């Protein structure tokens, strides 16, 4: 069993968050071709000061120390602002300021889409931004066209305007959750903290929201393009943010001639082969492994998995990305030598949340007799620092590979994350960071399973079976029940559980 740093994962995640900054060229270096009145645009760009308090996934019953960060945003309607989700996640207070005006305005989060790194804020004060014209959304910029980025880099009070060139449009991983991929536009601007959430402008309209960079490359920044922003705004129109649907399939290219002949494919260019269909996903049970996806909603899918989209070659997932949860999607398949159509409503990818960084929620946990139990998820693994090096391999297998390699729905997993030492458990401190396989012989997959099992236990002992090592952890029921409140008090824990 490996040891774990006692500090929370937050400093690391915050380190990542520091990398989620937007683009900026030194003002005045380049001359914009754009003739729109900059004053009008700058008036609609706001600075955002946020006091954040993150969840502490090592000590899940408490939060981390509050800290302040600064970002940018822009007005899209009366009292309504768009920014990045990572700017306002885990926010305890949000203050907005207009360009050239030191007057603070308190804002609340209207909606937040962590998977898409976008949020909308609301400022209640009727005096806020009076006379400021909201910015309008534009289209997708063409390659090598020039764009302007506005914002408040490095927390400056003065607005900054920089210019760059569109160098690529592609799907990338959005670092805020670390598990979601969407369309993004790459530009060659310099990157500075504080720009996050600021608008990227072309022809006087917003064509993106600056949001992240690549730390190992210089002069590479990304902004969220309007198809993603517009989809987000359409999603929240019904009063809640629901997020993305997903087909729930793994596909491979169909470039290989022998593979195409094997499948009896008549066409030389179309189709990707389905390697896996996740149980309970949108495609289950209508799409099968070894089916070939020829088109999605009538858009032909090429054999390398791309479609033509506004002059760009993009993953066919872009067709699905534009839809809302519950929307129907039509998939044209090649199966057993015949073409056929299936259509079905889009659902979320099963179990996606455990792969994501979590925000705005208290971590689920359960403490009994000094044993701290948590769900096995990305946040828990982040408490190891570099989990690929520091976490035990069975934990990594369970988290990253078990559901991929199984045909059954993933039931979840519970870990013994800490032992708060007391005389009845001190010899078990070396058993931390193990999977809880069973309690009194009953398999455990959720914290609720564990809590119910402990409560329902009839014998004199609780017997937990842990992996790796196949070790037994045994507690005397009466001694554990008696020690439980004492241990909680000793370690300053006011609540022994947060069960989902």
């Amino acid at each position: 069993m490996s040891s774990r740093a006692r500090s929370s994962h937050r400093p690391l995640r915050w380190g990542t968050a520091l990398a989620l900054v937007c683009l900026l060229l030194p003002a005045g270096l380049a001359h914009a071709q754009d003739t729109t009145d900059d004053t009008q645009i700058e008036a609609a760009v706001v600075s955002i000061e946020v006091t954040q308090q993150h969840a502490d996934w090592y000590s899940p019953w408490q939060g981390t120390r509050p800290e302040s960060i600064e970002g940018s945003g822009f007005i899209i309607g009366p009292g309504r602002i768009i920014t990045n989700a990572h700017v306002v996640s885990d926010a305890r207070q949000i203050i907005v300021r207009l360009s050239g005006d030191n007057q603070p305005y308190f804002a609340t989060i209207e909606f937040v889409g962590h998977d898409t790194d976008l949020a909308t804020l609301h400022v209640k004060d009727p005096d806020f931004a009076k006379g400021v014209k909201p910015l309008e959304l534009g289209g997708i910029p063409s390659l090598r066209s020039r764009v302007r980025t506005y914002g408040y880099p490095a927390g400056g009070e003065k607005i900054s305007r920089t210019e760059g060139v569109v160098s690529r449009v592609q799907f990338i991983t959005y670092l805020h959750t670390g598990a979601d991929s969407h369309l993004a536009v790459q530009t060659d601007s310099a990157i500075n903290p504080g720009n996050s959430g600021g608008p990227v402008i072309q022809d006087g309209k917003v064509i993106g929201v600056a949001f992240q960079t690549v730390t190992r490359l210089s002069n590479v920044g990304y902004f969220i393009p309007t198809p993603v922003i517009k989809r987000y705004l359409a999603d929240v129109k019904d009063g809640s943010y629901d997020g993305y649907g997903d087909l729930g399939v793994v596909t491979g290219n169909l470039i290989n001639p022998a593979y195409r002949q094997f499948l009896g494919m008549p066409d030389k260019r179309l189709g990707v082969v389905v390697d896996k269909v996740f149980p309970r996903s949108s495609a289950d049970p209508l799409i099968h492994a070894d089916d070939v996806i020829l088109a999605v909603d009538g858009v032909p899918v090429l054999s390398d998995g791309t479609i033509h989209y506004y002059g760009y070659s993009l993953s066919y997932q872009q067709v699905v990305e534009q839809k809302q949860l519950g929307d129907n999607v039509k998939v044209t398949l090649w199966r057993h030598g015949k073409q056929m159509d299936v259509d079905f409503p889009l659902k979320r990818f099963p179990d996606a949340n455990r792969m994501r960084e979590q925000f705005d929620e208290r971590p689920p946990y359960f403490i009994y007799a000094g044993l701290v139990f948590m769900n096995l998820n990305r946040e828990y693994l982040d408490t190891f620092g570099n989990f690929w090096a520091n976490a035990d391999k069975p934990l990594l297998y369970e988290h990253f590979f078990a559901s991929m390699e199984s045909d059954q729905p993933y039931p979840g997993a519970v870990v013994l994350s800490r032992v708060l030492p007391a005389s009845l458990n001190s010899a078990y401190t070396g058993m931390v960071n193990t999977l809880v396989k069973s309690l009194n012989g009953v398999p455990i997959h959720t914290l609720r399973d564990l809590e119910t099992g402990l409560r329902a236990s009839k014998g004199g002992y609780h017997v937990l079976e842990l992996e790796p090592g196949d070790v037994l952890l045994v507690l005397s029921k009466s001694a554990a029940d008696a020690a439980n409140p004492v241990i909680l008090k000793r370690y300053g824990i006011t609540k022994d559980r947060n069960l989902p």
Partner: protein
Amino acid sequence: MKPVTRLLWTLLLAACLFAPAAWGEESPVAAGVVSISVTSQAYDQLMPWIKNAEQSATGNAVVVRGHKLITTADLVKNATLIEVRKFGRYPDYPAKLTLVDYDLNLALLEVDDPDFWKGLHPLPLSKRPVQVGHFTINRWRANGRFEQGTGEVSDVLVSSSPYGLMEYPVMRGTTNMGGLGWSEVLTHDGEVVGLIIGHSEQRIQAINSDLLRLLVEASERKPFSGFAHRGFSWQRLNQKSLRAYLGLQHSKTGVLVRRVFTGGTGSTELKPMDILHRIAGYAINPEGRIDHPTYGLISFTMAINASLAPTVPVVIERNGKRMKLELKRRRFQSDDYRIPPPQFDRANDFVVFGGLVLQELTVGYLQAWGNDWRDKAPPRLVIEYAMHSLRDPGSPPERVVFISRVLPDQANVGYEDVTNAIVLSADGKPIHSLNAFREATRDPKGPYDEIDLLPGSGRGKLIFDHAELDAINERVRSRYGIPPARTPRY
């Protein structure tokens, strides 16, 4: 004493304690330590038909009875030439490897030329390797100089070599001597107490003389039965509630057997949930330690290799009843592994099929990623090793077959990104060895060969036109300079 005089005395004392010193051949220890020069050439783990450039290394060996030399297996692995030199002077004598145990990290050498042995004397192997407290580090350097330094024993832990799962006591110590890493010989009062197998700055790890003596004894037995592996997993019973649950509240000994393996010591005699109370006459405390006369408190697992006796006696408790058992000392056999330890001195088997390079996963392959291979090697393969390196009891012998890389060819276009992917089946048959792969793909039911990969490998299936495979394989072998296959096809 005048300050200047005191300073001189202090310097002299420090020089005696720490500074390496050159000794002449008349030193009795110098006549029991020889230098070794090794030229080695390893096979490339990623492309196993290629031999890497040869490398040279030098080290030391200790002269033991019967005109034999002991050194570390690490020094002589993949050796193409081994030469030894006495007293740091010409000539070099060719030596032959008569026994190598990578699990122990020890090797025995012999030199046929009788001239070599003239003037050399076997060094006695100490029976008190740890209690001595201090030791002398002895080594020959390439410049013909014999050097000595001093060190101190810190502790003894049960450990394993990087090349195997066998457990044995490893002596740890500290020294001020620099430039370690040459299989230096540790002595005390002219007796050998250990052989250095690893070092880090001023810390050393050494195999102690007890094990060296056993190796000499074992080598004199025919056939070499050698040392044994532990054939079961166990856990401590050092929490009151756990002991009470197992009915051990009145006992002061015992650890819990959790799993038994397909091979190794105890694999056939022990059962899960047995309580192991005593081994080789020693009481096992609830933390799994015995009070050993040489090593003090130390893991009970060292008792498995404390002697060469065919069995090791234990006292266990099963279903509440105490009983005595004799555990047969067993070494893991090849079939006991799913992922075998590194293989040296020979190439890994491989198949080139449609440009795919298939191998059976070994620890040696993973170790190609360096000392921190557990972090750097392909994660799914490391996980497979961490979780399933030994065969499950009751299951047939099997290996993990995987595609180590794709040699680009028109036949595998679209498959180029498949690397380190575990093969599940070929032409509908489960694949648990390269021979099973060869057999499965010999005569597929249809015109295509289908290879199914573990989900998450980048793609699920690879397809090849069976009728074209011979031509494809010949083209790939010719283009990439791969020697002819061992079997008629691949």
